[in-house]
Each structure stands twice: as structure tokens, then as C-alpha cells.
């Protein structure tokens, strides 16, 4: 529930926005040709969400996460997921240790997950048991071992990656666990111009080092500003209708959804949509969430949450197609005009 009585003033919002944009610009400078991915990644970070990056090997996923960790001055760890990886390898374990006084004690040895940013590389190669341990920690922001709960560092982000082409010997992440990722971002290739620039200007393709770092205090300010981005009731209603329209069987469901979708997005998706839309508004320098912010993040939020049926596979309908349809058909203002009546806005000159 909103308790704000006024919007964050421009003079307060502007420096924060500039800082966020500077991070984005720096990411664009370090890794060429992936501006939208960088924007969504930053939005995910500002929303304190976990992100699943899907892309072919060598497109710069690991480099991106490394650069982000470096920029934000956050502790960064990478875990290469393999089939024999055990939960204790990630979470940590109690080890019997001899104390200086000769006493033997069980001492907790934290796993790789105890870090601000964890890169879970090729997460789908680990066994479901290990994946579950990881995903539980992602949700709880804490690790419980032998009845003792240990909080994870704050902020805590998991940036997982998975390879979409090698399916042999992998354990695809169950849909329920995919829901815990704020975004699923497809990291694609780059065009010839960008490749030319990479080859010609970067020795062995190594990205340049960041020119500045965001301190913890500055990052905290960013998170504080996120709290003050106003989400009005009509925009919240739009997000709710958007998510509801993706549920087959709901009154708002589109015919295409009824035909191609087995399960729609969860309420967690609506929450994720709201949070990421706030971050998008912040990046755009607006004190309130707008409909265009929702539209800009909706594909990343919803694409892994709409579970399509076999009919969709047969007709090669993707979740992105359905999301585009939802964004087109679900009216932002919810005027509820009858079919055949429409408002046609003129061009807004800026």
C-alpha cells in the first residue's frame, strides 16, 4: 500500500537516475551490442531480483556479470554447475575443526552462495537436488544447515545462465522454480559492426576495466529511491489485468491464451512486474510507474512464466508472441468500451 503523499521531487530523483544511467552506460561501454540486456539486468538488480540469462556460449554472459559485480563493488562468485555438484558445495557445510585450545568443534564453512552476486553458470547441468538447494536459498535469502539459519549477504543476486542447445545430460529447471527468477533474458549475438569493433579494439576480446565503481552507500541510495517511485492504482490494475489475461480460464483471458497456454503467471509475476516497472521508471527519470514501463519489462518478466501447451509448440507459438498479444489487447486504462468503439489519440508532439 502506498503511503506517499507526494511524488519524489525532481531534484532528488535526478542524481539517482544519472547514477543508474552511468552504470548502464558503463556496462554498454564494457560489453558492446547488448544495451537492452544491460538495461534489463540493471532493472533486475534495482528490483533485487534474480535473473536467468539464456544464451549460447561465448556471447558474454559471464563477462557481463563480472563487469556488473565490479561496477557495483559487490562480492562476486561463480559456480560452474555440473551433474556431480552437491548442495553443500554451494551452500557450505559444517566441518569438524580442532580449536587452538584443543577443543573440537563443528565449524560452518560457507559455500559459494555466500556472496553478493553469484553467477550460477550452466545451472541446468546440476542435479535437481542441487538446483533445489540453490533456488531455496534464492527465495529465502538465507541458508539453513543443521537447524541453524544463516542469512545471505545483502544485497544478494543470483545471475544464472543456461545453454539452450545442449540438452543431453542436463536437468531443465522446473517451471515452479523458474518462477523464482525475476527475469529470463535471452542474450543473443551481436551484429557484424559490433563484432568488428570488438575484434579491432579489444585484444583477445578482453573487456576494458570499469572506470568507476558504485559504493555500497550509493547502491543503497538507489534502492531507497526505488521505494519512492510511485505506483498508482490504475497502473497496478493494468499489471494485474495483464497477468490475469494470461491465465486460461480467467474472465479476462484472451482466446489465444485459452488455446495455447497451460498455466499462466503466478502472483509473484505481478509483484515482479511491479518492481521491475518501478526500476524502469527510475531509469527513465520518472517519479511514477507508467504504462510504458510496464510494457517495457513485461516480456522479460512473463516469458518464462507462461507455460505453453503442445498446441503452441505445434503451431510454433512462443511465449513472446503471446505476451505481445497481451500487451496489444489489454487496454491500459481499462475503459471497457464495447467492441467497435475505440479512442484514437492524436500524435503527442514533444
Amino acid at each position, binding site marked *: 500500500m502506498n503511503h*506517499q503523499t507526494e*511524488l519524489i521531487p525532481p531534484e532528488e530523483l535526478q542524481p539517482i537516475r544519472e547514477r543508474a544511467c552511468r552504470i548502464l552506460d558503463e556496462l554498454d561501454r564494457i560489453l558492446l551490442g547488448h544495451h537492452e540486456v544491460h538495461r534489463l539486468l540493471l532493472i533486475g538488480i534495482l528490483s533485487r531480483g534474480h535473473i536467468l540469462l539464456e544464451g549460447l556460449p561465448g556471447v558474454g554472459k559471464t563477462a557481463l556479470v563480472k563487469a556488473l559485480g565490479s561496477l557495483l563493488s559487490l562480492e562476486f562468485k561463480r559456480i560452474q554447475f555440473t551433474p556431480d555438484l552437491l548442495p553443500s558445495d554451494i551452500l557450505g557445510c559444517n566441518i569438524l575443526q580442532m580449536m587452538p585450545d584443543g577443543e573440537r568443534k563443528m565449524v560452518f564453512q560457507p559455500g559459494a552462495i555466500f556472496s553478493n552476486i553469484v553467477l550460477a553458470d550452466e545451472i541446468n547441468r546440476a542435479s535437481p537436488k542441487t538446483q533445489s538447494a540453490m533456488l531455496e536459498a534464492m527465495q529465502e535469502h538465507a541458508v539453513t544447515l543443521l537447524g541453524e539459519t544463516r542469512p545471505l549477504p545483502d544485497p544478494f543476486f543470483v545471475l544464472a545462465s543456461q545453454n539452450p542447445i545442449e540438452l543431453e545430460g542436463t536437468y531443465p529447471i522446473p517451471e515452479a522454480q523458474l518462477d523464482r527468477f525475476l527475469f529470463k533474458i535471452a542474450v543473443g549475438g551481436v551484429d557484424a559492426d559490433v563484432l568488428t569493433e570488438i575484434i579491432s579494439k579489444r585484444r583477445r576480446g578482453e573487456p576494458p576495466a570499469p572506470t568507476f565503481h558504485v559504493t555500497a552507500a550509493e547502491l543503497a541510495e538507489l534502492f531507497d529511491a526505488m521505494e519512492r517511485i510511485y505506483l498508482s492504482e490504475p497502473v497496478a490494475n493494468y499489471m494485474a489485468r495483464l497477468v490475469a489475461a494470461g491465465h486460461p480460464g480467467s474472465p479476462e483471458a484472451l482466446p489465444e491464451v485459452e488455446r495455447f497456454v497451460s498455466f499462466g503467471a503466478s502472483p509473484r509475476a505481478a509483484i515482479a512486474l511491479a518492481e521491475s516497472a518501478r526500476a524502469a521508471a527510475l531509469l527513465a527519470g*520518472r517519479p511514477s510507474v507508467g504504462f510504458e514501463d510496464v510494457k517495457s519489462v513485461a516480456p522479460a518478466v512473463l516469458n518464462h512464466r507462461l507455460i505453453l501447451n503442445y498446441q503452441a509448440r505445434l503451431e510454433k507459438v512462443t511465449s513472446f508472441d503471446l505476451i505481445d498479444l497481451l500487451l496489444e489487447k489489454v487496454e491500459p486504462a*481499462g475503459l471497457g468500451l*464495447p467492441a*467497435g*468503439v475505440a479512442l484514437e489519440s492524436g500524435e*503527442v508532439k514533444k
Partner: protein
Amino acid sequence: MKRLEDPVRKAEVMGRQLRRRIGVALFLRGFLSVLGPAAFAAGAVVLLLRVFAGSLSAAAPAGIAAAALVLSAVCGAGMAARHLPERRKLLVWLDSAGGSGGMLAAALEVDPGAWRGQLLLPPMPKIRVGCRRGVAVAAAGMIFLVGALLIPQSRIVSGNRHALDITEETAELEQKLEVLEEASLMREEELEDLRAGLEALEINNDARETARTYELLDALARKVELAGEAAGERVRNEVETLRMVSNALDSLSALPLDQVPPEAAAQMGALLEQLARENPELAEMLANAGRESSKLDPGTMKRLADAMRDSSGNLEKKLAKLVEQKLMNARCARPGQCDGRNGACASPGSCPYGEDLASWLEKNAPGADELQQAVLAVCAFGEEAGKGGISRGRGDALLRYIGNTKDSSATRRDFSVAGANDPAQSMVVQRFAAAPNVDESERRAAAAGHLRGGDVEMEQRDTPVYPEHRAAVERYFTPKGK
């Protein structure tokens, strides 16, 4: 970009205007979408009422049409009220369309503060209403309704498959009415009344009630016949009047001037004036003939008689039409021969110069004894010469051309056959105001000679006399020794 002083306030004003426009658009759409079916339903009701309840008063169809319109308007208003968006939602729409980034929507809940000046408003949007199909259906419905209101009742009834086939009878009646109308033999109100009856008959033509339909048809046919007979009777009386008057005028004009009593001329003038008051046509004839009621000279009388005969001829043509349409008995159409409507003829072939004219004068000019005497004197004078008679003597025979014989091919020369006016050859024995008392011996002699006046059965022969017989006829009538 249009930066406003107080964009929130402007947006609210814009929202109100937009809401009004949307309301009107929704009303029109709803109205049109309901109007089509309502008009079809109203048209169907009107048609059903006209088919089953006969012709309606003008108020009933108008009421049904008005009800359809009112119903459409109410439904349109209801649909508009149901779908009319809230003003707040319209402001949100303006936000989404104007690219305010949710600030306008947020401004509805919190104070936008310094962001107030950053709010963007789009221009007033256009409202697109897809009602082409509704308009088409509404137009079709209205055409149907108007058609249902305007289609003639007779068409509706004739379309009834349970109607009796009385087209021949009604056509015949219609033709009779047309004849009566063309001949101006009936008053306009009477004609309208009969036509209304004919239309009512077509409307009420129902094969399921055959007896009633035929009763109506018979009643109407009888009404038309009565009207025709009455009209024919009037015409016939007029013809008879003209004929009698012209005969009387002829009779007077035929008398030598010194034998026409002045009182008879005065009484003739009075009679003409009296008749002219009842008959405008006769009055006009009198005016055209330049008559002075006190001075009826033979020339004026002759002209009047000719004019009356012409007029009588026109009227007889009308009578012929009535006879042709069987509106009148053919025998009754001949003046002077019909005593009643159904052809109870009196003394066919009787001489209009004689007793008929006398009785007519007695009836129409009572007290004009001198006039009656003068007219009968002509009869006694033997104007119908050639027919003979115990008191009339011989006279000029009238040549009559019948059949296809035409006088135009013959050279004709008129002259008076000596005899009638020649005292040496003929003489006036006596003039009677009525039929003379004939001596019994004379009567027997007449009977023996097959002459008129005998109490035995007379033999009559109509012998055609053609122009080539003229010489023989003249020879026959020429006194011997001349």
C-alpha cells in the same frame, strides 16, 4: 508538447468533454443497433395489424413507429450508461495516450508537486465507432417500417392467399363507377362513397367467410346499380323534358303566325322560365338563343328547339353508355317509353306530338290551356302527315333513312307536296283538343280500312323507304289529275 498552466485541471476538463462525447457516441451506436430490429418488429406489427385487423387509423401506425423509436432511444441510453467509462479512467487513458509516464494517473492520488509542469496531454482523441452494420440494418428496418405504413391496404389484402377471386366482379364495378364519373352523372360524394365501399370489399375479401364476402359484393353491386339507375332516370327525365319542350316549340313554330295565340306563346315562355330555373343547361340555351320570355317568335322557337335536340342527343349518348354498362335497362333509355325503372314501357312508339305531349304539358304546365290547345292543334293539323287518320287527312310524308343508307350520295330536292295547305285539295274539318269522338260507322269503316282509331287489331309495317323510292312515293301522294 503542450505544457499547460495546470495540466491536472486541464486534464479533468478534457476528461469531462471526452466522457460526454463517448456518451453520445455510445448512445448513437446503441440506438442504431436497436433501431434496426425495432423498426423491423414495428413494421411486422403494423403489417400484421393491417392484414388481420383491416385498415388502421393513422394514429395506430404512427404510435407503433414512435414506440419503436422510443424503445431504441431508451435502449441506446441504457447501453451508453452501461458502457460509459468513469471520468477517472478517461484521465488514465489520457495519461497512457499522452505519454505522461503514469504521472497523471499518480496525480489523481498524490500531489505531483514539481512534476505538475511535466505532465503531457494528448490532443482530444477521435472516437471511432464501428456502426456501419448497425446503420445498414437500421436503414433497412426504417425502409421496411415506412413501407409497412405506406403500402396500400388493397395490396396487403390482395396478397392474402385466403382471398376470393372476385377480380372480375370488382373490375366490372370499377368500370361502372368510371363510366358514371366520366359522364358526370353522379355527385362526387356518392362516387367517393361507392369507391370506399369497393375498397372495403377488397379489404374484407376473405375466402374463409365466403358468404359474407359475396353478400358484401352483392350489396355493393346493387348499390352501384341503384345509383346508375337513379342517374339514368335523371338523364332520361332531362332528355324527355328537352324533347317535350323542343316538340312543343316545334309545334308552335310550325303553326302559321296568325294561328299562334299570344297567350300560348306567353305560357310557353313561362314554362321555359320555370324549367330553366331547374335546369342550368336550359337556362344557358335560352340565353344563347336571345330569347325574351314575353316574345317567342317562330325563329327563336326553332333555334331553341334545335339546341335542345342537340343537348338531348348528348344526353342520349350518356344513356347509351349506361345501357352498355348494364346500369340501365335499354328500353328505359328511350325517352317517353318507360314508365318505370324496369322497363314497364307505356305505349311504345306513341307520338310525342299527340297525347304524350298533351299529358306532359298538363303535368308540367298546369293551367296553360292555350298552350296545350295550340300544341294539340298541330297534331290535329296533321303534322305527322302520311300516317293518315280519320281526322287528319293526307299530308307530306317524312322520308326516313334507316340501316346503312346515307342521304349524302343522293341528290335531294325539297318541295312541298300540294295538298295539306291547298284548300282545293284538302280541308280542315275540325280541330280537337283531345281525341275526336268518332262516329260508329266511321269507326267501322276505319277498321275495315285498317286505319288508326279502329278497335280491331291494327297491322303495322315498317317499310324501308330509300332515296330511290322518292319518285314512287311522291307519285303515290300526288293527287290525281295534277
